[in-house]
């Protein structure tokens, strides 16, 4: 199983602030990689660098053996990489179905085919009953599901999920966990940012920990739990 994604010495500077500094790791195909770290650690920034939302200041992102730096996000998406936003961004004035269809248009020019793909993905996230609702009117839990359906509709090989469980109640979180595991069964590689430790431990095959922009640790969930540095970063050194 080869690496679908390679991060090589990626740094991102905002003025003097190093939001990411010299981060390197690889992501094997079909795996779920957990990305954790305290607030402001640079997780979202790393996603932005990977998806081409902005290019990294230094280093390289290699997706399927191809160097991505500076590639436009729409092209990145066509290559098979898609992400959700920490702060969900549905197209509020469109219907739920239309939102997902926009994603599907990444793969087809036919509105009819796009509609079929969209309905299928809405079923996957169990939102098909709300297909005709305005996206802006959905409660937060369903908006997150919509976000997932929308990226799934782009038929990605690598999916980057930024805190899809944030703000959800336990029942909703459980639904999302099942959803992530379902997606894995379809062979889609995933990278998941999540603050809920229990959840991340359950779903991840490997975990990378970021702190102050740097990679603090990397390993299996068991290794991470056992890692003293991680515990300190999260809970403070007095622990």
């Amino acid at each position, binding site marked *: 199983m080869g690496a679908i994604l390679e991060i090589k010495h990626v740094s991102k500077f905002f003025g003097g602030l190093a939001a990411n500094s010299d981060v390197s790791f690889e992501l094997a195909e079909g795996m779920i990689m957990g990305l954790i770290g305290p607030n402001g650690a640079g997780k979202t920034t790393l996603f932005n660098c990977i998806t081409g939302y902005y290019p990294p200041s230094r280093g390289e992102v290699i997706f399927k053996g191809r160097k991505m730096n500076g590639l436009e996000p729409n092209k990145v998406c066509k290559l098979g990489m898609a992400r959700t936003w920490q702060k969900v961004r549905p197209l509020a004035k*469109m219907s739920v179905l239309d939102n997902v269809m926009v*994603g599907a248009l990444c793969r*087809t020019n036919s509105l009819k085919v796009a509609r079929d793909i969209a309905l299928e993905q809405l079923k996957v996230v169990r939102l098909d009953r709300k297909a005709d609702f305005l996206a802006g009117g959905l409660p937060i839990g369903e908006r997150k599901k919509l976000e997932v359906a929308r990226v799934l509709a782009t038929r990605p090989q690598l999916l980057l999920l930024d805190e899809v469980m944030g703000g959800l109640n336990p029942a909703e979180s459980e639904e999302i966990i099942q959803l992530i595991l379902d997606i894995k069964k379809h062979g889609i590689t995933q990278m998941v940012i999540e603050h809920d430790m229990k959840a991340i431990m359950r779903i991840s095959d490997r975990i990378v920990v970021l702190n102050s922009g740097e990679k603090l640790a990397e390993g299996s969930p068991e290794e991470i739990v056992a890692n003293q540095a991680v515990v300190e970063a999260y809970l403070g050194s007095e622990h």
Partner: protein
Amino acid sequence: MAIFLQSLISGVLIGGVYALIGIGLTIIFGVMRVINFAHGDLMMIGMYLTWNLFQYFHMDPFMSIVVGIPAMFLFGGLLQKVFINRVLGALPQNQILLTIGLGLIMSNAVMLVYTSDYKILTTRYSSDSFKVLQSVVNPDKYERLYDKGNALVAEALAGKGGNAAELLAKADKKYEEALKVKPGQFRALANWGASLASLARLRQGEEAAALYARADEKFAAAAAIEPGDIDILCNWAIAYASRAATAGPGADSLYEKAYEKFKEGEEARPDSYDLFNAWGATLYRQALIKQGAEADRLLAAAWEKYRVALDAKPVEEGAEPVDTEALANKPPAEIRAALDQVYGKFPFAPRLKPDKRDAGISVSTPLAISFVITVAITLLLYWFLMKTDTGQAIRATAQDREAAQLMGINVKRMSILAFGMGASLAGTAGALVSPTYYIFPQIGGTFTLKAFVITVLGGMGSILGATVGGIIIGVAESLGAVYISAGWKDVVVYVLFLLVLLFKPSGLFGKSRV
């Protein structure tokens, strides 16, 4: 009521064109968050394009959009790719400077080529109009039918189109219906008679005879209501005269009947130019089928009537009155030659006096055509945005450029499409107004401002808002011009604009922004 409806309708019609300009601006703003201050100048380019196609290729201005739409689309797309693209992330003031600058370059470049002279594009139908809503404005059924009949006869007599017989046959029905609603109306009977006589002239044989007989009937009925009405008697006599021309042996008795009517008319009004003129013409015509002394006698009589007619004719201002005394006592040969000149081409057509009433709302033909095109284009645009993949992608880009891009939408391409579409819409609006507006290089400024007001009024980025906004501005201008004063119509528009900004800053259909 009629004035209100009239200005409302013209307001809606011109508002349609305004909507087109506003929609273009709002699409560009929606997709790129750039206010295109060169929008009116794009419209001006469209006007000049239309003018050139008209002037040098004789292309109808409304047809010219077939060329104008793709040409303006390419031009707009190019502007986007070369210029606008570079300022997409820039400060608003930089974007404003760029688009204003582009507008200035356009208007000055056009001025360089075409000078700042006003150009006018005059088509066959530039000042045509037609009537609508007659039944609303003129609820009296009799009058409506009567007016319709008159309009048909007037059209037939004007000789347009060569289907006079058909029109007169229709008029026949209208008068009949009118008189069924309200029997015994003098004017309807008089005009009916005249129109039947006219129709008879276009027919032959028994058909003509039957029509003449019916015309007689109507004239008689009308004359019974107003004996001595000069128009009736004149038309009646002319009807006999034109009948006589095709009657062969029976001609003389018909001419006698015509003279009877002329005499009745003379008793009622001894100084009618029309009456004596027609009388003279009739005598001259009868003389043509006679020989020798008989012909000379008729010619002398015709000459006599002609002189009376000249006396009765109102002298035109500045013209010398004709000395009719000097015309008396001419030798028959001279009289003959003179009458050939005067009556050789006398039209034996009844003179109709349909009392001109302004029933119905008059709609300018070019404005109406442009409105129809506007509606078609707007519907097409709506269909494109709602029902095609590219349309969906454009809408997604307008809602959230970054999210759309991350979902695989090529937002640069969408921007080029959006600016191209905006430019085509502006250019189309330019083509549509070119038959009714003066064309000059600086006209863009007015329309940029108007487009801006329309989009802000409707809500920036909302197509429905721009459509409604355009119509509102059109109607406000038109009502303002009628009920306040033409010079104040812009004031009405801006007061309306300020009120909306005060009470609903996000515009009528805009979502409020945080």
